[in-house]
């Protein structure tokens, strides 16, 4: 009897603190890659989100917000473990993650099955954009294929007829290859797949130089991109060939590539020098706080925080009615630093895509620079398959 009473009172105590916490505080869990070579990407996401949080005095939508950051170490099993602990032990209201698509695939099921909202600040795999779209999943970044599709359009605009395409031999590399070929109207002279983490591109560059291509299209994120750009330049190919890429010359790799990348073309949804009021405020505040130029990763995380802020404000902090929360997020009633932003039926963004060019700033730092808009309100190719 005594036992029963203690457990009852313990239960009551738990319930009381539980509801108190739910009504007052907002708890957000974040799963990003913070170790190994791609740690720079995850760090940008943490910094971008934290900046938005600090600007609002630690409150999102008027609610005191606690951010719990976890490192997935780029290992699916670790990502799964961290996500499960965020849901079960920390009882977070929203999970924000991840950087890489294969990490998202690892945490997706347990998070959405627990009816916790999952918002991806970067990864946008095709797998959750079509048939398997989910009411509890949102992406604030893009759908993975889109940047490569836009690169194909850029190649058409630039009048390229022969393009040499190269990507690492894994899912995202093959997706980008498919995306590029989908919109590019000319001839792809060679399709080269290199191992992931490839070191020496001299063999591929030799093949490129003897092909008839006028331009190279590539997707080489992180260290691979730094090596490729440096070696491309050292081989003297910059004079005769155009370099087009996605996630290869961005703010995370440019500090290593430096002058070798200047003038190279890229496709993206945003550049740090896009001249809008919201964007200028974001980039200057970010640089002041962290001392480096934000990349798209930081921008997307910043937008994610502002999206959550708008939704929570709309709900008055009440996260209990899942349908209302979903509607509030889907409304996307915030001002994105990118400009126009809306969610499609599959909860992936509808947004503009631009051509970007690597430029050197007067203070010697490098960044991608806005050139012109290639396509407006661009939807991904999978949204029609989504029944939601």
């Amino acid at each position, binding site marked *: 009897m005594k036992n029963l009473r203690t457990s009852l009172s313990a239960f009551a105590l738990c319930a009381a603190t539980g509801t108190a916490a739910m009504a007052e505080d907002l708890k957000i869990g974040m799963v990003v890659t913070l*170790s*190994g*070579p*791609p*740690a*720079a990407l995850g*760090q940008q996401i943490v910094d971008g989100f934290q900046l938005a949080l600090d600007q609002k005095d630690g409150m999102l939508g008027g609610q005191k917000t606690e951010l719990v950051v976890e490192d997935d170490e780029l290992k699916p099993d670790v990502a799964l473990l961290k996500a499960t602990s965020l849901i079960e032990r920390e009882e977070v209201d929203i999970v924000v993650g991840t950087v890489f698509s294969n990490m998202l695939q690892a945490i997706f099921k347990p998070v959405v099955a627990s009816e916790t909202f999952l918002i991806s600040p970067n990864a946008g795999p095709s797998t959750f954009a079509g048939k398997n779209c989910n009411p509890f999943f949102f992406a604030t970044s893009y759908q993975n294929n889109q940047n490569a599709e836009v690169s194909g359009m850029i190649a058409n605009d630039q009048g390229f007829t022969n393009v040499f395409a190269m990507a690492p*031999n894994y899912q995202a590399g093959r997706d980008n290859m498919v995306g590029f070929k989908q919109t590019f109207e000319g001839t792809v002279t060679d*399709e*080269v*797949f*290199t*191992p992931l*983490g490839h*070191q*020496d591109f*001299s*063999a*591929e*560059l*030799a*093949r490129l*130089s*003897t092909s008839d291509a006028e331009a190279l299209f590539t997707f080489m994120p*992180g*260290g691979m991109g*730094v*090596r490729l750009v*440096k*070696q491309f330049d*050292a*081989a*003297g*190919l910059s004079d*005769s*060939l155009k370099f087009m890429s996605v996630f290869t010359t961005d703010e*995370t*790799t440019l*500090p*290593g*590539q*430096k002058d070798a990348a200047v003038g190279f073309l890229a496709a993206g949804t945003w550049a740090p020098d896009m001249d809008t009021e919201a964007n200028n405020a974001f980039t200057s505040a970010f640089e002041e706080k962290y001392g480096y130029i934000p990349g798209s990763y930081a921008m997307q995380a910043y937008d994610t925080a502002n999206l959550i802020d708008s939704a929570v404000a709309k709900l008055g902090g009440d996260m209990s009615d899942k349908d209302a929360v979903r509607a509030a997020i889907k409304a996307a009633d915030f001002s994105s630093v990118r400009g126009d932003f809306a969610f499609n039926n599959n909860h992936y963004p509808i947004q503009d895509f631009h051509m970007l060019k690597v430029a050197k700033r007067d203070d010697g730092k490098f960044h991608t620079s806005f050139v012109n808009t290639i396509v407006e309100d661009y939807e991904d190719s999978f949204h029609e398959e989504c029944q939601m």
Partner: protein
Amino acid sequence: MSFTLFMILVLNGFQYGMLLFLIAAGLTLVFGVMGFINLAHGVQFMVGAYLVYAFYGVTGSFGLALVLSLIAALAIGLIFEFFIFRHLYDRTHLDQVLATFGIIIFLNELAKVIFGPATLSIDPPDLLSGSITLTEQLRYPIYRFATIVAGLLVAVALFIIVSYTRVGMLIRAGATSPDIVSALGVNIQRLFMIVFGVGAMLAGFAGVIAAPIFAIEPGMGDNILIVAFVVIIIGGIGSIGGAFIAALLVGLVDTLGRSLSVELLSIVFSPSVANQIGPALASMLIYVLMAAILIFRPKGLLPARGVA
């Protein structure tokens, strides 16, 4: 496939082979002479690259940075030998693997803490920054030729030292029967320390000359270590000559294989199938080569005499 392209690929294969040799030389001596499995050898490659980055930043001269990096790499190798590896010589291979694997994790994280997770790069020295025109479009950087020459010089120097000097004789003798050498009044402990320090320095040297070509990042030595093990197994454990031949062989097979696999396969298969299996096959090629050589020569191409 034009002849020019083929020659460029051969040149690239040589260059990659030389780099592999510099790493494998130290690994094969440590493994062959001391019977010690040093997984942390690859991380010395990364250490060399970060050292030259740091010293280049401070001094502004590549030559000076090279010398300082070599001294520092040697010192780091000796420190590890003195504090850690020395206590592991008599332990089982599993203990050695665990301890040296721990060093990999430690140093990779340390590099991240000190230099940050982002990829870094340095420019080649001005003297070697020019290039030679190979085809209308393609230029071959002089720096890459310099790495081939540097690798050849080290190979010749090591061969002379091991074959014709007193230290080299002791190294070979120490490998065959350490107890007898010790009984004859030779300080075997110090001999091992020298071998270890030089091995670490060679890996560091490889890291230094690789830094301007490849990007500098935490964990950059992990993949190359596996290839270095393939090289010393093909060459014959403990054999410098074997490591040299095997390094060139692996360098050429890997470089040529990656470029030719798709073309050769598309003779037999449809282009899309060739594109699917070509890259996968190319990355397996050096392991297939290793397996094939081990079938016919289980001790490697040029096994060192007396190595168990």
